[in-house]
């Protein structure tokens, strides 16, 4: 519940952190660098005297960069750890190991004032617009809360105007300021959540399944809004979702997660047109294509079985239990996320990071 507090608080120089995060990052330069991020949730037994009997390896060594101004999509099935990654980046969970560098500063060790300063710049949009807004606060109080917490952002007399401006920016009537969340539809609530995320003028917004709870016809509205805001406010997005076509639409680069690990990462074209990891290939082939003509001329890889439990992942490559290419080597040696040997130095879209011993290209998505 409490903020993650690190013992070596004194070691972090608050002013140095504040100076570092003031720095402007050029477009395309890395703004967030994640290195070997690990989160294990202990499994305990006993009521009064708890003893650890194992761990759920929700996130197990994930590394990636987020560049300024881009959208990095993260896809994967339930239980792959993508939402835990979001919480770790938001410092809502304490990482078991690994670092998150924001403009070169490791933010996982921060606390107090430095942490608060970082929070101003990294914000989040939640999945469920029905539970992410406090039902007992008015829209004005919800969107204005960031200013109460960070009073330096907006002087007191200015707040009402600021909140109304934000409502306008997300396409809601500024006169709705005194209403309660239950008086809005799902799409409108998600706009309120986005307005709250924008209030502090952040640089990074982490979106955890921001449209999956919305009706189809409303999803497109919210996606468009997010695209517009990205241009207007020069935002960098991490867009976590399970809907592959929406992720492709909005993302510049895409990472595919499986069982707490990154299976493959690359530009949207590399991942969608030239996937080399068998899991990515299976995932893409399983997506129902809203075009009955296309179903005839595409190959479908139907995986057998279910995702193994993250409390007890398979040895070696975690995908090997469902993989049609698995060999002896896969159970002994965990593949590293890197450009596969066979594609190294080649000028081909298949030359991107993929954690598979037997990475090879396979055409999956029929060209529209």
């Amino acid at each position: 519940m409490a903020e993650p507090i690190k013992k070596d608080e004194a070691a972090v120089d608050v002013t140095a952190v504040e100076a570092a995060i003031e720095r402007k990052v050029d477009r395309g330069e890395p703004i967030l660098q994640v290195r070997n991020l690990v989160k294990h949730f202990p499994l305990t037994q006993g009521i009064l005297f708890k003893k650890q009997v194992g761990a759920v390896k929700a996130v197990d060594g994930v590394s990636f960069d987020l560049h300024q101004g881009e959208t990095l999509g993260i896809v994967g099935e339930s239980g792959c750890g993508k939402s835990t990654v979001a919480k770790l980046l938001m410092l809502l969970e304490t990482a078991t190991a690994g670092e998150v560098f924001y403009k070169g500063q490791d933010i996982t060790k921060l606390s107090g004032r430095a942490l608060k300063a970082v929070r101003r710049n990294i914000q989040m949009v939640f999945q469920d617009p029905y539970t992410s807004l406090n039902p007992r606060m008015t829209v004005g109080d919800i969107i204005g809360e960031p200013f109460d917490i960070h009073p330096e952002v907006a002087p007191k007399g200015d707040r009402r105007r600021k909140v109304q401006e934000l409502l306008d920016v997300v396409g809601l009537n500024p006169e709705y300021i005194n209403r309660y969340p239950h008086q809005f539809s799902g799409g409108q609530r998600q706009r309120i959540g986005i307005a709250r995320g924008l209030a502090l003028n952040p640089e990074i917004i982490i979106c955890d399944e921001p449209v999956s709870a919305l009706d189809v016809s409303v999803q497109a509205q919210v996606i468009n809004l997010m695209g517009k805001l990205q241009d207007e406010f020069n935002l960098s997005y991490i867009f976590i979702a399970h809907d592959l076509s929406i992720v492709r639409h909005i993302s510049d680069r895409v990472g595919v997660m499986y069982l707490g690990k990154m299976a493959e990462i690359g530009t949207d074209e590399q991942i969608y047109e030239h996937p080399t990891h068998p899991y990515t290939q299976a995932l893409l082939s399983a997506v129902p294509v809203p075009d009955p003509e296309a179903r005839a001329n595409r190959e479908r890889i139907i995986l057998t079985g279910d995702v193994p439990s993250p409390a007890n992942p398979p040895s070696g490559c975690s995908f090997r239990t469902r993989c049609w290419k698995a060999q002896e080597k896969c159970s002994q040696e965990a593949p590293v996320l890197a450009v596969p040997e066979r594609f190294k130095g080649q000028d081909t879209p298949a030359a991107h990071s993929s954690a598979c011993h037997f990475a090879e290209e396979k055409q999956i998505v029929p060209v529209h």
Partner: protein
Amino acid sequence: MTTSHVTADVPAQRGTDGETPVLEVRDLHVEFKTREGIVKAVNGVNYSVKAGETLAVLGESGSGKSVTAQAIMGILDSPPGRVAKGEILFKGQDILQLPEAERRKLRGPKMAMIFQDALSALNPVFSVGNQLGEMFRVHQGMSKKDAKAKAIELMDRVKIPAARSRVGDYPHQFSGGMRQRIMIAMALALEPDLIIADEPTTALDVTVQAQVMDLLAELQAEYHMGLILITHDLGVVADVADKIAVMYAGRIVEQAPVHELYKRPAHPYTRGLLDSIPRLDQKGQELYAIKGLPPNLLKPPTGCAFSPRCPKAQDICRTELPPLVPVSEQDGTELVGRVSACHFWKEQIHG
């Protein structure tokens, strides 16, 4: 059938003309009494399914697609809900006229339903084998031992690995995909003529979704059942349906064979739904979005319920409710199985 001018491989034409449909819904109206007034959830729905045919009912939340299914199954929450008007013909017989005891006998042996959330649809305190076997014990008076054997056989049918050793397990011991298979097994147990699947794969992961949909399609073909697939996902529909009924605000706004609907929608709402799917060639551009919000059924808009959101709405759309009319080619030849509830369907389909 021979007169059909649609190519023979279009699955919608599979049923023989003249054959009585397994299910026919006629002018169905369902209302709910709430504190704020009467909500008209279903306002005159017509559709039919033949044996071996898959009808997909597509709609957003509040479109009335699930309420229609509940009315068919006779599991409508009433009160507050009630069927205000209409007929539900099961093999030609209006089941709304039947006494409750008779209707109960239909559920299971004649028609069955698969729900979205298998975990809450299965009883957590009984083993899976017990719940599967119950179908046989109650409806066919089988002995406990025979029922258990049948349960194992069914679990094998839906491809649950190690069925014999898992028959005594409880629902929470299965994964989401396996639980959905058990739901399918339960629905299939008495080999009904009609299965209604309400968002059967929405709660599942993509890779598991594909497995379950395939299984359902395979079993449907084998048992030659009618299948009503209720969903909001245009992708799922494209893969399995023969014909599609699109619902909006408690009405069917368009119905068509699956290929035709995707190629040439005859209603602006269908067009909008199809256009708002992200496509490759639109990358980086704005997605097409249907403006506005789904209607409030307490106070539906006058005229066409879609008119406040429709890019092509004219004055007539706001005053006059468009009837569901057959759709034809430009030269007047009828397009079999196609209807649209739009004043301007001609402009919509022929550009």
